[in-house]
């Protein structure tokens, strides 16, 4: 199922998209920890630090301006997550590490308690995550925040875009600790479903991953990779992609050849931005707000 965010907002008469169900049946035992509290975090994605070219003549400024915008905004996120492609790929291992070092220095200016990182294929595919791990740590991880379980899935360090059986076993193990109605957020880079396989907008073994996620009734997926906002549902699971901080890409399969949307000097940075994610109702009601790189609400 595909839906347009603005159409849904109108239908619901809401300022944001409420995508969690808030269904009855939740028990505190579900989280096996602290009772979930309302909180908010930001999703930033696809900053491609090191890219240069006509799709973004301000490539060396956009990420820095975004950091300034986040710091200047009234938003007080508990944390920020970057869902991959932190840096733009290069065959030069030394340059890859230099870009990662520069990226870390820029985002270290973010005034938030915590920043989580995920790899994208530009960061991790060519060396199977070696430089990424040196700079950012584990390729996949899990953490609990205010009773909500976050699971970051790596579908990029295998250059064929697969999660792999070993990580899927780990995923099963992580989820196996939780009740089926526990609030869960899955973070990843590529879509876990076949959004546009001909454009390589898929995960090679995504169906296997989704079959593991499917039994969990309050699970939402946030990802990057496609450089635009997109909302889909597989089964009962909602999947939300984020905008890029470098250049937008066209809607899936909307043009014969995938290529960055041309930079518009009349509307610089159009199509770029970041996302606010609010989790309420014990982590089961998910509300999204989109912002441009200047911090303006979209």
């Amino acid at each position, binding site marked *: 199922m595909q839906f347009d965010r603005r159409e849904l907002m109108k239908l619901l008469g809401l300022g944001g998209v409420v995508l969690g169900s808030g269904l009855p049946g939740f028990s505190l035992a579900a989280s096996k920890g602290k009772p979930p509290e309302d909180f908010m975090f930001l999703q930033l994605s696809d900053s491609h630090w090191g890219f240069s070219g006509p799709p973004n003549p301000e490539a060396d400024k956009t990420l820095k301006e975004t950091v300034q915008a986040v710091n200047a905004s009234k938003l007080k996120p508990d944390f920020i997550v970057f869902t991959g492609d932190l840096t733009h790929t290069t065959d030069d291992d030394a340059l890859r590490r230099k870009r990662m070092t520069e990226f870390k220095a820029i985002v270290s200016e973010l005034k938030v308690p915590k920043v989580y990182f995920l790899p994208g294929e530009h960061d991790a595919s060519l060396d199977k995550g070696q430089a990424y791990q040196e700079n950012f740590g584990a390729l996949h991880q899990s953490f609990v925040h205010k009773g909500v379980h976050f699971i970051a899935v790596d579908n990029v360090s295998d250059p064929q875009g697969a999660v792999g059986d070993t990580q899927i076993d780990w995923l099963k193990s992580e989820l196996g600790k939780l009740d089926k109605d526990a609030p869960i957020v899955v973070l990843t880079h590529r879509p876990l479903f076949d959004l546009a396989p001909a454009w390589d907008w898929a995960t090679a073994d995504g169906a296997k991953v989704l079959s593991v996620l499917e039994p969990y009734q309050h699970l939402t997926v946030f990802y990057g990779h496609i450089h635009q906002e997109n909302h889909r549902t597989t089964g009962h699971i909602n999947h939300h992609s984020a905008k890029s901080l470098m250049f937008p890409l066209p809607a899936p399969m909307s043009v014969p*050849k995938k290529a960055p949307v041309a930079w518009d000097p009349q509307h610089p940075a159009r199509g770029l931005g970041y996302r606010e994610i609010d989790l309420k109702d014990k982590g089961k009601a998910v509300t999204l707000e989109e912002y441009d790189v200047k911090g303006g609400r979209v």
Partner: protein
Amino acid sequence: MRGVVIGVALGLLLELTGRVLAAESSPPRVIKMTAKKFEYSPSEVHIRKGEHVVLERKHGFKLPELGIRADVPPGGTARVEVTAEKAGRFPFACDVFCGDGHEDMTGTLVVDP
């Protein structure tokens, strides 16, 4: 046997060897593809409806509408047999991340009526 070799600058080489066969019992036409970063050339490969071909590639290759995907072992070659059951244009892409320009590695298999 009719062989066609299409070489390109940048080293990407698409070699078409074999023949278009009249008899079903004849061996399929073999399309050998040795790809180089970051494009397929030609970006369109034409075959005829009903034709049985073998695609051999040394790069990632996914053609989802015809259910074709091949893992490529390091330094090896992927070999996929396909019979084009219907005419049309079917996009394909490299599905093994190969660096800056990977996203440009797309093309179209054109099945002529």
